[in-house]
């Protein structure tokens, strides 16, 4: 049964002073700042500095290079398709996990989290074993004229695999908290399953879905390991932005160009995280009410 809605005051946490003394608080703050500073902020700022050290002209040259443009476009395509699939499957799986009881539910729930704990390289290799030309489906796919591995489909599959949990884990708690009384009420008012989903369930989880999708988008844009294995890393064909960075940096020794592309990815990620933070705040505001 869902909790009765209570006045907001009851949810407020006790004043911070009750929890720890002033010195403890200052010390904890220092630790957090130190951590964020050394591990996140300084490296990111160095990337920015390094990117623009050769000058703006060289930066724009690097990101408008045909191969770079191709890499950006491929990353955008793969991320775009993956995010759509993440959204559809993520909502579906979350609904299945929260609203239905079936044998093997805990196992499914654990499997959903698998990509988070397994190294993306392993994911990539597993996909090659299944879809590669000597893999399980490889022969069938070849005869059907479909190339999965070393082509865009494998990039999408790998990316969805690693990013799906982000949507599922964002949506599940909100669904759990909301319960299904609103849907039952809608049913008693004459709403069929589709209407309930469209008019009640989706609006209820809208913020959570957006949050999960933004996170998964960031993940899709940044995916490297699984993509490296399944793509074949073919310049101008299956080379995504992250692969391009590594290729420029390691193989071609064009560090300036590598940093230029890196900067673009960082920028997109920062924007995504700001959007996610904004959405989360709105979500909290609406669920607290």
């Amino acid at each position, binding site marked *: 049964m869902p909790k009765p809605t209570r006045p907001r005051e009851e949810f407020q946490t006790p004043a911070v002073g009750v929890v720890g003394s002033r010195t403890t608080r200052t010390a904890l703050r220092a630790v957090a700042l130190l951590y964020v500073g050394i591990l996140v902020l300084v490296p990111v700022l160095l990337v920015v500095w390094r990117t623009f050290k050769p000058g703006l002209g060289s930066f724009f040259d690097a990101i408008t290079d045909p191969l770079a443009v191709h890499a950006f476009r491929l990353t955008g395509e793969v991320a775009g398709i993956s995010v759509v699939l993440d959204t559809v499957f993520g909502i579906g799986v979350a609904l299945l996990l929260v609203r239905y009881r079936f044998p093997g539910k805990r196992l499914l729930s654990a499997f959903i989290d698998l990509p988070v704990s397994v190294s993306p390289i392993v994911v990539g290799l597993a996909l090659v074993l299944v879809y590669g030309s000597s893999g399980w489906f490889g022969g069938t796919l070849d005869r059907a004229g479909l190339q999965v591995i070393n082509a865009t489909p494998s990039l999408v599959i790998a990316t969805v695999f690693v990013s799906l949990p982000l949507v599922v884990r964002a949506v599940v708690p909100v669904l759990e908290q909301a319960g299904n009384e609103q849907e039952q009420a809608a049913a*008693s008012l004459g709403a069929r399953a589709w209407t309930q989903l469209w008019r009640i369930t989706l*609006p209820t989880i809208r913020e959570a879905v957006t949050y999960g999708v933004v996170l998964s988008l960031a993940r899709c844009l940044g995916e490297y390991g699984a993509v490296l294995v399944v793509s074949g890393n073919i310049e101008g064909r299956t080379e995504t932005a992250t692969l391009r960075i590594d290729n420029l940096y390691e193989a071609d020794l064009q560090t300036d160009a590598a940093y230029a592309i890196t900067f673009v990815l960082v920028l997109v990620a920062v924007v995504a995280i700001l959007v996610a933070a904004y959405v989360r705040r709105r979500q909290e505001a609406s669920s607290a*009410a």
Partner: protein
Amino acid sequence: MSIEAKGINKRFGSFVALEDVDLTVASGALTALLGPSGGGKSTLLRIIAGLEEPDTGTVLIDGADSTQLPPQRRNVGFVFQHYAAFKHLSVFRNVAFGLEIRKTPKAEIDRRVTELLELVHLEQFGDRLPSQLSGGQRQRMALARALAVEPKVLLLDEPFGALDAQVRKELRDWLRRLHDEVHVTTVFVTHDQEEAMEVADELVVINHGRIEQVGSPDDVYDRPANSFVMGFLGPVTQLGGHTVRPHDIEVLTQAVTGAIGAEVTRMQRIGFEVRAELRADDGGEPWVQLTRGQAESLGLDVGSRVWLRPAPHASVLTSR
């Protein structure tokens, strides 16, 4: 529109929620399903609504077999204890929901919803979100929403259970008056016997998945079928091997044949009411409920010697 449930059985795992339940609700009646928590009354209501499926048995609404019908085709209004307000929709849109999905013309929706919001005294609140309403207001909104689709029957599951005492009392009176205006067949679930007796035309007392007794509030109170019903509807005490209501005991200052002698051991005043605990000569420890005036005119105090007997009109059950 009448409701009939026949031979309903329902288990949750090994827990028997309902056992061989037969229920008939007359068209236009206001019926309370009354019983302790976990007794099966909510399950019965949800089975009537189609939100739960019985293991065996049939549900007839307005004479038509509805057992296999999904909730959306039963034309039943359901009100939940925790309102089940559509949180993302305004009060107006909440009430309009059932009409909107029926593709009712907009002008008609506006007219109906405005009418209903007036009926539940929320006409000023149409633009608000449910989160901006108090509990009582939310429940009134939920009622308007259920009534909007002109249901054949209205089912309320502990509708006032989440509200504080004051609002609860207001809403009870209001529900009673609403029913007198709207006349829709209404069944509500409650564990509060006072609420049930105050609001309903008919009580159905349910315990341990079975119906213990059906009747008008007076009937059930005055002629309880068994000691459970008697005990659930009001306080009871033991006097000379009988179960009797503490306000149905005559307190006499002189010995009379058939009366049991007793000594007052404790007195407690609660507002206008006085409760006296006694030790009877037969070893029993009955208590009686008197008005303050009665207690004063009897000169009752701790240590007083009195004689007790059931009043002539009292409902008395012989204890096992």
